Every structure is written in C-alpha cells, then in structure tokens.
C-alpha cells in the first residue's frame, strides 16, 4: 500500500514538473521576450534535426550567437549542424533529397535552387505547418519579414515559376538573404574629394580615379570567374542597365545592346580593378576589399558585417555605405539564402520549429549582434539598430529598389547559369571572344535548354 502511494506520488510530482517545465520556458529569455509562454516548444523533445547550411557570414554569426544552443535548451531537440562551402551544398542536397529518407531535416538553399527543389517536390510547402496551431508560434509576425526576401527565397509556382502570383506556394523563409549596395572607402573618398557614385558613369569615373591616381589602390572589386561568379557579377549590373536573360517569351535576350554594354562595363572595371580580377570568385572579391586593395565594393549586402569585423578587415573603421548606383533604372539584387524543409526529412516538425525559432524577431536581433544580416522590416527600420549599424538605413532605402525578377530562377537555371552564361561572359572578360561573339555563341545552347524544358514551343 505504501509502495503504491509512493508510486502515485512520484507520478503526480513528475506530471507537475512537466507542467512546470512550461513555466520554466517562460522564464527563458527568448520565450519571455516573445510572450509565447502558451506555446509548447517541447512537443518534439528528444528528436534530432540535421541542419545543412553554408560557411557564410550570416550563418557564422548564427553559430557565434549561441542561438542554436538556446533552441536545444528550449525544445529538448538536438541540432546537428553540417556546414559546407555554399556552391558545394547543391550536389549534396540533391543527392540527399533524392533518397527515400534523407539525412537532412532543414537545409539552407541558395535562392537560385528554390524553384528546382520546389518543382521536383524535393522541399515541402510551409503553409500546412503555419496552419497547424501546435506548430506555429503565435506571434511570429510573418508579415514583418522583408517581403522581397520572402518572395525571392521562399515562393515558387506562381508567375514564371519563380515569382509570386496565382498558384504560388511558400517553400522557404529568408535567412541570410541579401540585396546589393555600395560599400566604399570613406577615408579615400574624403581624402581625394571623390563624389560617392550615384550613377554608373560616376562609378566608372571613381574606379578610374583610384586606379590611376592613387598608388596601391584599385577601383571596384568584383567577382568574374568562369561560371556562376561571372553570371552573378553580370546580373548585378545588368539589372540597372536594363539587360535581361530572357524576354517575355523565354527567348534569350542576352545579346541585346544593354547586355553587351554590361559586359563592356565589367571589362572597364577589370582594367581599373586589382590584378587578375577576371578570375575572382566571391572569396577573392571580398579579400581585395578587406585587404584595402579596392576602394569600392558593389555586391551582396551581407558582406557589410565582415567588412566591419576588425579581426578580418583591414578597413573596418574606414567604411561608407551608399545605394546601388543607377543606370537606366535603379535595381539591386535579390538573393542569398533561404531555409527549407526537405520532403524526405525524418523530423519535419522539429525542423519547422527550428526554422521559426531562427527567423523570430528576438533570434534575428541576436544574430545581427553577432554579425548577421537583418531580414525583418522591424530590424531594418529600428532606430536603435540604425544608430549602431549605419548600413541599415541604406538597406532600408535600398530594399525599395530590390528587383524581385533579378534573375530567372527557373528549375533549369543551374544548367544556364554557370555552364553556359557564366562561361561565355568569362570568355568575353578574358578576351577569348568579343562580348557580342561570346553571347551569340550560347544563344542556341540556351534555346535548346528552354525547348527541352517546354518553355519555347
């Protein structure tokens, strides 16, 4: 009898502790701040989420900020991290997602793979998760996520497959997303009284000035290596210059005068740039600015945190930020990374909890403080953060001009991006062909891709 009573007593006290567990969570700083006390974070306690993400400034900040450990403590879910070079993630992700059950529960994808994954049913639509009250954090405030980032990182199936519109579904959430803006060496611009470029003509003039007039300093740093990097570099300038990859009928449009002019501009920048820039990957583009060799950087906005990091940047205290210069129009990039859940994930619900946790306001702030990039309007427009991060004010303005149709991220983009377009652009940049010839030579191969995929009848 005594034994029985003792057993009941233990059971009751255990149950009480279980409820009290919720109370303890409320006491945890993250949950307390978001007021999600009623939400049960521990529903998937004991499960494991395998998370594949890039070695990238934003994800490094995530790791440094301690939010992963916080999530583990809050939920009792174990997070296994798998960090890779960003362009190498694709092969691994496709292989994992082609198996009956993959190793990954949560992936970070470069936005250009979004449609490919979504159309092949490799990643799961997120709406069913958000509709499930047991899984959706009550005050997540989805509408606060930068709308342009959500469209480019997460939405597929609408207009042109990769845009929003009828039939579109949400497949991903922005985390490490970016637009482009200008970072310049304020000390040099001030010393030599050079105007911070607002137009491409002024940009060309500033690059020429530093390359020719200031010893040891070059103009703009840029990625241009054969393949993906050359295409990215070209698209950055193609958008404001009015060049497009396809016309409205999916016919190649990269032989247009604007497209050729964009390559000519890049060739000029190479002339005024650090030696060997025509072979630069993103890492080398960054290094040239961090080492103080280049006076101007015009590319992904997430680089701002690294440029300001005194441990890696020689120029961390000499920076100015400005809008992406305009040519025919104003149009900055939309790209970077988004989080998605593979269709064959072993623990999709736990992965969704982690996905939400990482993109919540409180987590975002911690990641920003560790050197990450903002992805919520509330953070970009926050006066306190703007005072601490001068680039946020520029970013808030730049986002108005971020071009959601910056690149045609159809499922077949991978076949066009590096192997055809990026190779041809690099051939032109390295003088193997004239820009006109290089682009004309890939019209037919690109058309064949589009015919095979059914875009051109």
């Amino acid at each position, binding site marked *: 009898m005594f034994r029985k009573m003792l057993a009941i007593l233990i059971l009751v006290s255990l149950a009480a502790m279980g409820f009290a567990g919720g109370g303890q969570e409320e006491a945890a700083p993250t949950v307390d701040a978001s007021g999600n006390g009623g939400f049960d974070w521990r529903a998937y306690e004991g499960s494991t989420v395998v998370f594949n993400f890039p070695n990238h400034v934003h994800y490094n900040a995530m790791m440094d900020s301690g939010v992963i450990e916080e999530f583990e403590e809050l939920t009792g879910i174990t997070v296994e991290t798998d960090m890779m070079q960003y362009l190498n993630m694709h092969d691994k992700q*496709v292989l994992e997602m082609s198996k009956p059950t993959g190793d990954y529960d949560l992936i970070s994808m470069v936005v250009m793979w979004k449609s490919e994954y979504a159309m092949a049913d490799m990643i799961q639509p997120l709406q069913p998760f958000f509709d499930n009250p047991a899984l959706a954090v009550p005050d997540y405030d989805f509408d606060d996520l930068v709308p342009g980032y959500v469209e480019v990182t997460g939405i597929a199936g609408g207009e042109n497959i990769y845009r929003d519109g009828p039939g579109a579904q949400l497949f991903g959430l922005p985390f490490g997303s970016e637009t482009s803006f200008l970072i310049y060496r304020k000390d040099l611009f001030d010393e030599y009284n050079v105007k911070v470029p607002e137009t491409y003509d002024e940009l060309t003039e500033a690059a020429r000035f530093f390359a020719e007039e200031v010893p040891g300093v070059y103009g703009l740093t840029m990625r241009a290596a*054969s393949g993906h990097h050359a295409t990215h570099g070209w698209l950055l300038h193609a958008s404001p210059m009015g060049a497009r990859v396809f016309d409205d009928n999916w016919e190649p449009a990269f032989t247009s005068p604007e497209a050729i002019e964009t390559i000519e501009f890049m060739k000029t920048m190479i002339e005024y740039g650090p*030696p*060997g820039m025509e*072979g630069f990957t993103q890492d080398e583009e960054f290094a040239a600015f961090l*080492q103080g060799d280049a006076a101007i950087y015009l590319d992904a906005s997430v680089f701002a945190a690294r440029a300001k990091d005194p441990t890696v940047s020689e120029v961390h205290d000499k920076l100015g930020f400005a809008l992406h210069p305009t040519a025919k129009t104003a149009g900055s990039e939309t790209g970077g990374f988004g989080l998605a859940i593979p269709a064959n994930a072993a623990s999709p619900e736990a992965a969704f909890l982690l996905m939400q946790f990482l993109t919540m306001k409180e987590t975002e702030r911690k990641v920003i403080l560790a050197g990450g990039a903002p992805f919520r309007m509330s953070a970009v427009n926050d006066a306190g953060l703007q005072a601490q991060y001068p680039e946020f004010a520029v970013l808030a303005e730049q986002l108005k001009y971020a071009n959601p149709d910056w690149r045609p991220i159809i499922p077949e983009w991978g076949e066009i991006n590096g*192997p055809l377009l990026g*190779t041809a652009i690099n051939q032109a940049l390295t*003088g193997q062909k004239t820009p006109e010839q290089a682009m004309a030579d890939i019209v037919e191969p690109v058309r064949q891709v589009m015919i095979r995929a059914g875009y051109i009848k």
Partner: protein
Amino acid sequence: MSSHGIAGRKPLNAYLFLLPAFAVLAGVLLIPIVNGLRLSFFDWPLRNISKAPVFVGFRNYVELFRSEFFRASIRATLIFTLSVVSIELVVGTAIALVLEGDIPGLRFFRTLYVLPIMIAPVVVGVVWRFMYHPSYGKINFFLGQMGINPVGWLSDPEVAMKAVIIADVWQWTPFVFLLVLAGLQGVPKDLSEAARVDGANYTQTLLFVKLPHISSVLGLTAVLRLIDSFRSLVVIFNMTFGGPGVTTEVLSLHLYKTAFISQRLGLSSAIAVILLLLIFALSFVLIVRGVRGEKR
C-alpha cells in the same frame, strides 16, 4: 578414350576456376560500364531522378559533338594529358639518372622528392591556388621582387593551362622518378661496365644500354600516368574550376559539371563513354607497342 575425356574436361575446369574472378570483374567493372553505356542513350535529369529515364537514341552524342564547350574540353584534355605525361617522363627519368648512383645522403633526397605524391590532391589544388593568387600569391611576390609585372596565372587564358600543368608536374614527377629508379637499379652493373670498357661514353651507355633496358618500365609508367591524368579532376577543380572560359575544363571536370551542375545524367554518361574510349585507345597503343618491344 579416357585421355580424350581428360583433355575434354581440361578447358571446362579452367573456366570453372576462372569463374570467381570473372564474377568479381563483372560485378565491379562490366555491369557499371554496360549501365553507363546504356544510360548514355537516355535523358535523365538529376533533379527528377525519381522519374524514369527517357530514351533519346544517339541525341546525347550528337549534342556533344555539336557543343563548342565539349570540343574545347577534348582539346584541353589532350593538351593537359600529353603535356604532363611527356614532361613528367623526361624530368622524372632525368632526376632518377642523377640520383641513381651512390651519392651520400641519397636516401634523404629520395624521400624528399617523393613527398608531393603523399599530399592529398585537394590540398595540392588549394595550395597552388594560393601560390598563384595574383595579389597575395608567393609566385607573383617573387616576380615582383625581380621587377616583373603580376601574372594572372589562373585568370589569363594564355597562361592558365600552363599553370595547371606545372602543378601536376610538381605532384606526379616523383612517381615517374620512383618507378624509373627501380628500373635503373634492375639494370645489371656489369652491362654498363662492359659498355664503358668497350669505350662507350655516358650518353652512349645511356642510349644503348640503360634506356633500352628500362623501356618496358617507361612504357608502363607512361600508361599509368596517361590513365591517371585523363581522369584527374580534383586539382583542376580546386585551382580553376575549368576557367578562364573553358580553357582548363578537362573532360572529367566537364563530366562533373554536366552531371551535377547541369544535372543531365544521360549526357554525362555519354561523356564518360567517350572518355573511356579515349583512354582505351591511347593505352592500347602504348601497351601494344610495349608488348612488341618486349617480344623483340
């Protein structure tokens, strides 16, 4: 009658004993090759791997031979392979001849020369990429000290292939050196001594005694290096990833990009078949010539 019976069973027994070896060969070699050959007649995108491949006949091969980048890739492969194999054979043999005698401290030098083979190709690629870096690389730094302008080692289409060849020669010459040295040590001493007594000078001894003696070793080394360099991927992958343009995009890298970036498994199988045929043809020529040489 009985002897006839035994004679009749003999070949059968022999085949029976061959069976396990054949089964292993079929499992690891024949079946994958036949499957690869079969796949080269299909269209099978990696991103839709769950769907069945579509038969397209010879269309993959037609597409390949129409593709400018594929033709450039064949050209890059031939330039790369023939250059590295010939340079490595000449340099490796020369070093072996120098270090063949009884010089003090020889063992130390032999070990030193062999070190590059032991380094993982990924590391070799990354280290050479750093050394070739236009602004921060050691090579341009030393050139700068001598007043020479920076060279775009990996970005200049005229130079990139040479830069890649230098890295491969650096890594694989020791391999040739090792094999040739072993061959040279197998040359009977009395042969070269007899030649010298007969009044032959060093060049004559080398040309008419030593080299003929090690010709089969040289042939074998050439075949091994040829096959290996045809398939080499990792060093170039890390150094140039095929650039500038497609000037260093050897077939194995073109195959990788076709399979994993363009995601066309059928087309990449067609490249694999062509790569296999090329290696087979070149090795065949060398092996047949080697066998003939031995028979003589």
